[in-house]
């Protein structure tokens, strides 16, 4: 077994463990490459099926192409899509693009808070109706107790401390100093009422591993990652006001793999195009402690 096969096997094992142990389980799908690989791994783990809903937090500032791509794959792969949004903050224009908030506070409102309440089920959720392809208010308000997330340890400092199964308390807080032990394929899957667990099947994957896997499996990816002639491409996707592309001529998956192997980006952080990281003192620790993904 090569490295990618080992990584795949571990991720599949973790996904199956999550599905076995959590009655109310969902997966976050940001549309980006990592969570799309995660979605692909779920199809591997469950032999073509995705037996839990996918949750997408719509900040309303995502690049339009991301939304089209999301709904297209959702229909093609029969995904149980759920959308969440901070409607109040958007209606009150309490956002960074509206000029009424700094970046960190904007992320906190549009992502962290929207996510928290979408998972808890106390804010309205939208669910795709596959007969029409449209979203409708979700009748279920059940809280999710297991949330699968595509975080990788090599992205930035705080994520390197994560567990595969990482408990959060009622307030979605992460107690970094007191984390459960994980050993021999045994994870924390028993949890007290009121808490939930974040599950990180991609923890051991690097950016290069993700691209190599996309290449090996021919995973359909959004085209924003590729250079379309202007010498730039996105290396990490987010809201358009806070995300900038990198200089790169890579226009195919193979070229991106070669680019990463060449070490071109070895000295530049993957999320260097994500402005909120810099505003949070170089790491995402403040946001992550509060529930940011």
């Amino acid at each position, binding site marked *: *077994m*090569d*490295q*990618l*096969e*080992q990584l*795949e*096997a571990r991720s*599949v*094992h973790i996904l*199956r463990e999550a599905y*076995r142990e*959590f*009655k109310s389980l969902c997966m976050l799908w940001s549309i980006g490459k990592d969570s799309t690989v995660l979605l692909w791994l779920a*199809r591997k783990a*469950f*032999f*073509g*099926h995705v037996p839990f809903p996918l949750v997408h937090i719509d900040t309303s500032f995502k690049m339009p*192409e991301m939304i089209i*791509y999301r709904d297209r794959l959702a229909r093609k792969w*029969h995904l149980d899509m759920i959308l969440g949004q901070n409607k109040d903050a958007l209606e009150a224009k309490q956002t960074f693009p509206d000029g009424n908030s700094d970046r960190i506070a904007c992320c906190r409102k549009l992502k962290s808070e929207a996510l928290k309440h979408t998972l808890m089920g106390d804010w309205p959720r939208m669910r795709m109706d596959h007969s029409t392809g449209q979203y409708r208010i979700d009748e279920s308000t059940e809280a999710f107790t297991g949330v699968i997330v595509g975080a990788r*340890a090599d992205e930035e*400092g*705080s994520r390197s*401390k994560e567990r595969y199964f990482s408990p959060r308390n009622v307030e979605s807080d992460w107690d*970094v*100093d007191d*984390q*459960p*032990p*994980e*050993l*021999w*394929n*045994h994870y*924390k*899957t*028993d949890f*007290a009422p009121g808490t939930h667990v974040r599950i990180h099947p991609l923890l051991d994957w*690097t950016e290069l591993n993700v691209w*190599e896997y996309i*290449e*090996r*499996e*021919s995973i*359909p*990816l959004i085209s924003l990652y590729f250079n379309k002639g202007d010498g730039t491409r996105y290396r990490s996707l987010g809201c358009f006001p806070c995300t900038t592309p990198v200089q790169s001529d890579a226009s*195919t*998956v*193979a070229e991106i793999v070669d680019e990463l*192997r060449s070490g071109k980006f*070895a*000295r*530049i*952080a993957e999320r260097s195009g994500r402005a909120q990281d810099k505003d949070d*003192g*170089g*790491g995402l*620790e403040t946001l992550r402690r509060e529930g940011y993904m």
Partner: protein
Amino acid sequence: MENTSPQKTETAARGAEGREQLSIVIVGHVDHGKSTIIGRLLADAGALPEGKLEDLRERCRKSAKPFEYAFLLDALKNEQTQGITIDTARCFFKTARRDYIINDAPGHIEFLKNMVTGAARAEAALLVIDAREGVQQNSRRHGYMVSMLGIRQVSVVVNKLDLMDYSEQAFEAIRSEYAEFLARLGVETVSFIPVSARNGVNIASRSDETPWYRGPTVLEQIESFVKPAAPTDLPLRMPVQDIYRFTEHDDDRRIVAGMVQTGSLAKGDEAIFQPSGKCSTIARIEGFNSSEQTQAIAGQATGVTLTTQIYIKPGELMCRADQRQPRIGTQLRANLFWMGKSPMVVGRPYRLRIGAARVQVNLAAILNVLDASELSTVQGKGQVDRHDVAECVLETVRPIAFDLHNEIETNGRFVIVDNYEISGCGVILEQVEARTSMLHEHVIRREFAWDKGNVDRGERQARFNHKGRFIVFTGPTGNARHELAKRLEQHLFRKHCNTYYLGIGNVFEDLDADEPTRSVSRDEHVQQLGDLARIMTDAGLLLITTLAGVDDYDLERLKLLNEPNQLFIVNVGENIFSHFPVDVQLPDGADTRDAINVVIRELNTREVLLDYCI
């Protein structure tokens, strides 16, 4: 907008399969300099992102702190203020030869569970010792943990030798003391390396400071660790994680899924599931977006379909009929490391997890508690405290399929869950037999203490016209069991029987208690139910309940707990028991009146009902 193609491309996997990834843990006492060693290693091997070192120097300068290489790893803010590594930080690093994950395990005793997490992931270990302080209690404990966690390649790094003027004598003193200690644990050290992480001596390059040292640098040592081969030559052990039946989009496959721990399996192999002993043949190895596979080997997460429909549950162990079988039993002698907040005590139920099995376990006896730092033993201890290593006897409430740790390592180790937390881990030394089981002891004690009234059983039967019985409706989930059970109660009651339908959901305050739950222990429920049934059947009642997803062991336990009274099993639908006798077998979907009549007739035949009461 998508680069879709249904099959793998030709170019797939170019180059990727050539690269090997090795996982290393770096362990040592607090302040002995682990993080500095890794920081230095990353910096000297040129593995840092551009500007990271400068950023950090700048940040240190601003806050008037001396710069330290350790800060590179201690990425979180609260660590930099405390100056110690709190969790297992993973850092990725590559050389021309291969990729590495380095787990920086915290040295402080408070964080031993984090150290266990880091070390359990590793294929090789670096044990760090401070040359000035020598072998500390915690260095010994770490040596013990590394040995128990099964890491076979260990190198000892003696750090801060600059503070000892690079003295060969100081280095040799530590080497001889620690090597002797580790040898007693069966840990063979591949090297002892004298270093000064702060000055970069013997980290990535050799130094004039230690002309007497001829061995490898830390980097050279890491590069020469051998990646352990996948254990494909051992007998097959595949813990069954789940059984999938996704019926959407006309998928009628019933897939047994799990990760192959050891050995291999192939299409056509005769599979045997333990501990139930059920057999079938592997029809196909299932996959998604892959060409059809004919075999699966150790390390792969796979799934198979079988040629026959057999009823098995998640938690069983798939083995091959042509190979050595695991041991099956309820009692085992084990070495256990405890990291729970509360001590492990006799009499409190815990959950044991081995492979994919989860089962209630009790601490039956503490044989001795080992002081891991001194390798001396303490006897007669009544509990296992946090950070103790104990040799003890554990007893599960139902049989498990296991191997001894020295036979098949991955199936000879387990973790123990207490109050939702993984609180202990251990390795199995031996199967114990011929002890009276704790359940038997419970029943013996209970019966001994039972103060009988003056009305004897015969009098009661004569008055009621029937015997007391515990009537249990079993069968797969979602069928007519409930309806039948309630109708039986109604029917018997109208015939003047003393009968009661027990909806156990109400009793156990868990509405799902009647369904095979995914994570809640039903073993405790079974014991409570058995004790309750003993009382009610003794009162002469025809106690009726329904249980879904129970297996032979559940029924055996109920039978034992209900003694001296008896069970009466009505199974509806597929009979999933391999040996426990069913008193009445009913097809699912049968006419209710007919079904009740069959049950009544059998109760008459068995002389449970003394009058003919249809």
